């Protein structure tokens, strides 16, 4: 054949041969380019019939796609049938696939291109029928090219019956055994090839690329066929991410109705895995880097600039809500991490980020996890980021607070944990270190756990003063550092304890929450285990401001974003009966720094409402008028769009609500993370408000 000229093609060298025929490299003497020419073998011609093949080749030649080998021409003479096609310089997938499989990202990259090629063909009603690793080429540029679309031996009923009938005769090494390995169960049963049988074949191919071996083995055709029909697909190796495993398993469902129905669906699934894997890749280590979690069957939020995001942690998972800034209609997403308590979360919108942080607590440890796409994908770190040092002898039990650092330290984050300790990150959460000065405090041996354990639950960095910060521990009280965390002093003067003979000890108070307003950071409010207090000197002294409240017991406290004299609380009857007094659900507000309090109950149940609002389950947003939000232990979520004057039930029936925070998404679509950006000048703010107001929402 070599040296022969057929029409205007000069046959140069043989490239390969197989059951279908032989392929040659040839020179197109008219267009001066090299092409590949496949001559179909006489048995093939006899089996399928020249006319049928011509029809199929014509259909296949109608496909024009970057991942499909282009067919230039199909010729039939009295002696020969040949196909002139694009010459692809590269290697076939079965040559590339080494023992142990290809890297996950390569499997995804190739898989997406093959699925895209299939989707293009399926949209034009072309079924490949013989997708296998030797039919997929990877060019030297890394582009996938699928060969032999529709040109496979016609797998309509006739020949197929023959295959199934003669399967016992197939010896090892038969070409058909190779082809057989990719055949869907229904094909082996003699049914016609469909889109779903192509999807099965792609499932086999994905498995082969990921594992380095075929899912269904056998030394003879009968063994392979029997494995395909009867055995479940084996497990993929441990390095294959669960998302890819799930996709392969779905492709390899024995019932075609349970597979992806369209190649486009499969492509989308692979693309989602790819984008998540890119988002979670650590530059220094791709194999053991951060892994990613997806939540299937969960509605996700579609957010836009200007929306209000509500982050709701419950004892059984995380929920997210969004509304436009009118805050009338709320969309719900979640539960994320269903079954796991989410006691702490934060939204970091500094430096152009829009990163959600949560602390995920389970029997398997407590992990900080983050999402940069509003919950669609989450990091799943192989190791906990927050660990007590070995010499401390302590082990992390829970993370109770995630707090953003000051505006001038946009990469700083803090975590308050149990057993009581403070951790700090100065690289946007990549690495964490324990604040030694607090852990080694001489009072520590005498700190007594509260009902919630010995937890550091409140962190108040003082704005514009990197040296000063307050923290609160149950039941050790308030501590302040004035030297950046090296030394800490108890700051509980004036705060009463009820569980010890000495009513005003230096420390040992069971503080439930502290809030401070960035416009007046030296003024703070404190909800104690009995007692509501104010300090005007950054905690040096505290004064009882519980005038006129139905009870001064309570957990939650939130400050107004634009008014340093305004604070919200939800009084609870007593430490014994931890419910709202008189069965009335009332938020109380002061607008004069605690001189007087007013109940805010319009729209809230005032009969048989024995509710509890926990420490971090009350919050405000930064809009004007401010929105106020709280959740209850009974799973109700309420919100007010008018500073608490009127309330609406946002949802009922959540698990116990333990955490609520609001964020206004005013920086979406801004510059990428890492670029400093200015706040939106159009954002409405009250006269009192300043850029500091945004900090209040972050630092609470």
């Amino acid at each position: 054949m070599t040296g022969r000229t057929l029409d205007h093609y000069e046959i140069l060298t043989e490239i390969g041969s197989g059951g279908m025929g032989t392929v040659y490299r040839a020179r197109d003497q008219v267009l001066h380019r090299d092409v590949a020419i496949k001559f179909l073998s006489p048995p093939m011609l006899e089996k399928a019939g020249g006319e049928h093949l011509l029809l199929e080749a014509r259909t296949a030649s109608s496909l024009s796609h970057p991942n499909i080998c282009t067919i230039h021409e199909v010729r039939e003479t009295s002696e020969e049938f040949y196909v002139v096609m694009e010459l692809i310089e590269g290697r076939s997938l079965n040559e590339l696939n080494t023992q142990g499989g290809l890297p996950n990202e390569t499997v995804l990259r190739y898989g997406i291109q093959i699925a895209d090629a299939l989707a293009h063909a399926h949209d034009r009603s072309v079924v490949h029928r013989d997708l296998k690793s030797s039919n997929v080429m990877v060019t030297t540029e890394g582009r996938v090219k699928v060969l032999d679309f529709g040109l496979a031996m016609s797998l309509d009923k006739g020949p197929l019956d023959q295959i199934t009938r003669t399967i016992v005769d197939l010896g090892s090494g038969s070409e058909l055994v190779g082809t057989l390995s990719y055949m869907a169960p229904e094909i082996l049963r003699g049914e016609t090839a469909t889109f779903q049988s192509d999807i099965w074949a792609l499932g086999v191919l994905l498995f082969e690329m990921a594992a380095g071996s075929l899912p269904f083995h056998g030394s003879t055709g009968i063994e392979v066929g029997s494995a395909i029909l009867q055995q479940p697909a084996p497990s993929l190796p441990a390095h294959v991410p669960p998302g890819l495993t799930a996709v392969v398993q779905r492709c390899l469902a024995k019932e075609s109705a349970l597979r992806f129905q369209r190649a486009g669906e499969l492509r989308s699934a692979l693309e989602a895995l790819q984008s998540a894997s890119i988002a979670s890749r650590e530059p220094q280590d791709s194999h053991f880097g951060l892994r990613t979690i997806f939540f299937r069957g969960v509605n996700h939020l579609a957010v836009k600039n200007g929306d209000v995001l509500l982050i709701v942690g419950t004892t059984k998972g995380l929920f997210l809500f969004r509304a436009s800034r009118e805050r009338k209609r709320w969309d719900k997403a979640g539960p994320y991490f269903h079954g796991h308590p989410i006691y702490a979360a934060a939204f970091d919108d500094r430096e152009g980020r829009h990163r959600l942080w949560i602390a995920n607590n389970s029997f398997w440890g407590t992990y900080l996890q983050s999402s940069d796409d509003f919950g669609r994908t989450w990091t799943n770190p192989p190791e906990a980021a927050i660990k007590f040092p070995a010499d401390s002898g302590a082990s992390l039990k829970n993370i109770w607070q995630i707090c953003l650092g000051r505006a001038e330290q946009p990469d700083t984050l803090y975590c308050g944990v149990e057993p009581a300790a403070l951790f700090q990150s100065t690289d946007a959460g990549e690495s964490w270190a324990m604040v030694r000065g607090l852990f080694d405090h001489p009072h520590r041996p005498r700190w007594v756990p509260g009902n919630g354990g010995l937890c550091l639950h409140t962190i108040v960095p003082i704005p514009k003063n990197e040296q000063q910060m307050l923290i609160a521990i149950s039941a050790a009280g308030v501590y302040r550092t004035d030297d950046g965390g090296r030394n800490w002093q108890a700051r509980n003067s004036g705060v009463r304890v009820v569980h010890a003979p000495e009513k005003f000890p230096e420390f040992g108070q069971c503080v439930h929450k502290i809030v401070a307003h960035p416009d007046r950071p030296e003024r703070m409010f404190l909800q104690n285990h009995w007692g509501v207090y104010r300090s005007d000197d950054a905690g040096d002294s505290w004064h009882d401001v519980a005038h006129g409240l139905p009870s001064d017991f309570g957990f939650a406290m939130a400050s107004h974003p634009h008014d340093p004299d305004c604070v919200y609380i939800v009084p609870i009857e007593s430490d014994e009966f931890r419910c709202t007094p008189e069965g009335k659900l009332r938020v109380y507000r002061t607008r004069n720094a605690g001189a007087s309090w007013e109940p805010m109950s319009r729209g809230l149940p005032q009969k048989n409402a024995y509710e509890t609002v926990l420490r971090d389950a009350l919050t405000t947003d930064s809009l004007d008028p401010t929105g106020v939000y709280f959740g209850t232990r009974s799973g109700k979520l309420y919100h007010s769009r008018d500073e608490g004057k009127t309330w609406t039930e946002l949802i009922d029936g959540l698990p116990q609500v333990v955490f609520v925070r609001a964020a206004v998404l005013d920086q979406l679509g801004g510059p990428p993370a890492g670029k400093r950006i200015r706040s939106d000048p159009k954002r409405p703010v009250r006269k009192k408000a300043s850029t500091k107001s945004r900090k209040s929402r972050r630092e609470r």
Partner: protein
Amino acid sequence: MPVTFYIPGPLLAFSGGQCRIEIELSPGTVREALAGLSSICPGILDRILTEQGELREHVNVFVGNEEVRYLKGLATPVPANAEITIVQAVSGGLLPEH
């Protein structure tokens, strides 16, 4: 001699979705066996042991049918062809309310 590990549902993300993993290992103790498992399932050890190297409070590890807490803890010897089952304890899990 192979050691067979049975992985619970919540940890399948770290075992490539496999609930049964067989490794050629000759570990002396459960601690060494878990380290061997961790070498092919990164992230799994952190879920089983605390940062101080102790078994997490609500995680149970069985060698055969025996829970290692009733044997020698993580120093429990691992016999040839052992089956090691990792499960989440039924008890506990209630976190305090505030």
